[in-house]
């Protein structure tokens, strides 16, 4: 068995034990979060991408993506992806990762954090997931006078505005003016903003693919159980065809996200091939998220629209995750511009090289 499937099984078991969607959905408050986080942290999942020498688990890139797929399959409402990505970012600059939850950014394309020569930050970063629940923030910053660096800061030092995503998870605007990081180190250009965004986009693509697998399972299960007109609705051809379409969207999401994750795991650099893979995945998986969520809700009818049912734990995250690190439209414009610049004869060789 490949290590990523062993890791995936272990992660799935932990998520089932400490934050399965049905229990979380029934929970009266957020009291489940602290013990759940302790358990995933104990298992080394959030710092999988941090080398052992920098305080992490030192797992392969592929293993981390395997954890993220499982996190998506369980609609995990903990900052696991954010901490993984933050740890990866810190490691690019050779910085050690602290214990506890982290958030990272920038997430929005036009947002920037600047590090003044005097060592203080400025700027405002929007849509930072789980910033208000994090102990630390890992940020890619521009140095005044040029160059990129990674900055680690105490979350308490930044101004973090309240906010929630469409999924109900913390989604915050972070105000950085005057904040002094606890650690800063330069990153090589090859591991800078572009690499971080490609990594972030692929993290969300993999999570979305996992959530899409889960909603296919939920919708198929429901269709086989729910009886109408004296038979399970799964026996109606119209329902079957809707679910077959959902399977097609899930398949495209699995293939595109899995391919992008593998390209990053196998590649030495964030080159044009990785760009094609990561951009395509964010576009195609984002499209699948929209289409797939619509079909699943259609199959489940009114019950899927309730708070009581777990479907929304997945579909609301699908809708939210589409927007992180660039939505489908933004990536499509970037990819379209690249294809146009390379010209008609350059397109097929680029696709076939993958």
């Amino acid at each position: 068995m490949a290590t990523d499937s062993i890791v995936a099984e272990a992660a799935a078991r932990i998520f089932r034990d400490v934050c399965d969607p049905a229990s979380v959905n029934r929970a009266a408050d957020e009291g489940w979060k602290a013990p759940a986080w302790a358990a995933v942290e104990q298992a080394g999942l959030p710092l999988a991408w941090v080398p052992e020498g920098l305080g992490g688990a030192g797992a392969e890139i592929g293993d981390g993506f395997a954890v993220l797929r499982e996190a998506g399959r369980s609609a995990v409402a903990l900052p696991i992806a954010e901490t993984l990505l933050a740890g990866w970012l810190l490691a690019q600059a050779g910085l050690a990762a602290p214990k506890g939850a982290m958030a990272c950014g920038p997430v929005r394309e036009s947002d920037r954090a600047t590090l003044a020569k005097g060592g203080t930050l400025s700027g405002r970063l929007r849509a930072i997931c789980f910033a208000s629940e994090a102990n630390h923030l890992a940020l890619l910053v521009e140095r005044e006078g040029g160059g990129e660096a990674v900055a680690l800061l105490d979350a308490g030092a930044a101004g973090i505005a309240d906010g929630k995503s469409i999924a109900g998870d913390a989604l915050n605007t972070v105000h950085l003016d005057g904040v002094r990081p606890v650690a800063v180190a330069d990153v090589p250009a090859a591991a800078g903003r572009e690499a971080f965004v490609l990594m972030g986009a692929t993290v969300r693509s993999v999570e979305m693919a996992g959530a899409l697998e889960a909603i296919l399972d939920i919708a198929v299960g429901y269709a086989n159980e729910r009886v109408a007109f004296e038979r399970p609705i799964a026996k109606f051809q119209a329902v079957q065809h809707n679910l077959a379409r959902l399977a097609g969207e899930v398949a495209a999401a699995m293939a595109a996200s899995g391919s992008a994750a593998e390209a990053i795991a196998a590649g030495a650099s964030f080159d044009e091939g990785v760009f094609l893979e990561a951009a395509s995945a964010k576009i195609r998986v984002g499209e699948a998220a929209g289409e797939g969520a619509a079909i699943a809700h259609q199959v489940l009818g009114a019950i899927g629209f309730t708070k009581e049912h777990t479907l929304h734990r997945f579909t609301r995250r699908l809708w939210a995750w589409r927007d992180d690190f660039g939505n489908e439209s933004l990536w499509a414009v970037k990819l379209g511009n690249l294809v146009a610049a390379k010209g008609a004869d350059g397109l097929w060789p680029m696709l076939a090289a993958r």
Partner: protein
Amino acid sequence: MATELTFDPVRLPPECAALRAEVRAFLREEIEAGTLSPDVGGGIDGAFSPEFSRKVGARGWIGMTWPKKYGGQEKSFLERYVVTEEFRVANAPVRLHFVADRQSGPVILKYGSERVKAAILPRICKGEVCFAIGMSEPNSGSDLFAAKTRATKTDGGWLVNGTKVWTSSAHHADYLIGLFRTSAPTKENRRHGLTQFVVDMRTPGITVNPIYQMTGNHDFNEVVFQDAFMPDDHVLGEVDGAWKQATSELAYERSGPERFLETYYVLSELVRVLGEKPDVRGAEGLGRLVAQLHALRRMSVSVAGMLHAGKEPVVEAAIVKDVGTLWEQKLPHRARDLAAFVEEGAANRASFEQVNAYATMVAPKLTIQGGTTEILRGIIARGLGLR
């Protein structure tokens, strides 16, 4: 998860890269020689080319996975994948040999008599032999098991009577693989009673009548059998048991790159007509199409990897064809939308409109040939445990 689908990130092995370079060099020579044109749909009129097929055969690119004993190269299924996709993208005129290479040859290899295998397979590999598929009938399309064309036992063989229809390339074909009724279906099994035969098209009693398509092209035919004699050793596999033989091959037929690259020229002409600096709408539309195609190809390669590993990814293959053909069917319409604001006098507009108009007329068949969308969704639904 109850509904486990597998789409692992399979990469083509290194030997495929060398082969791809060789195939591209060959195609470049042919383009320079004027034998084919990738952009204007050279395949549109030049799809059937004995000269081209013989050259491809000489390169060892037909029947390349088959045993050397029968003219093959014993190459992997993944290497064949590369040849198929490069030829499709270049719009190479492969009609003469493609059906024999993909479908008919493998069926003969698996179920044919030794005499038939020795006589026909090496000639397929040389690019000399064209095959047609005789499945559909006037009252039997998607429902193959309703076939009525009858083969009746006679001395040393069978006499065939009836009509096949929508038979592509029958007017060029040297052989046809026919599905004929040899017994009535049973109460327990309505699929029982059909037998596959390899039919020599020179057999007396076979008449081929053309059916023209809305494009004006002649591809379809009606094939009429009147007491046409089939020798016993032209039976493929088990008499009355064809239903057992059809299913696993379909995964190869459904998931290949030809299922979404038949009109690839639309996409390359769209890139040309939008120019180096498209507006944001053009760039976004183009980016989405490329992302969707990339995802499709990665799905298709994933299924190819499973087939290569000896698995039977029936549901995954059906998904690739369902998603792939729908994508390709929408392609000319999407391209038309995206090119709508390109200046009237722009350099590539006329050639774009020409190929896009052609592809618009091709598009409706994509979700019909080789298993309709409706049939595929039934297969997927069964795989999901819904029926």
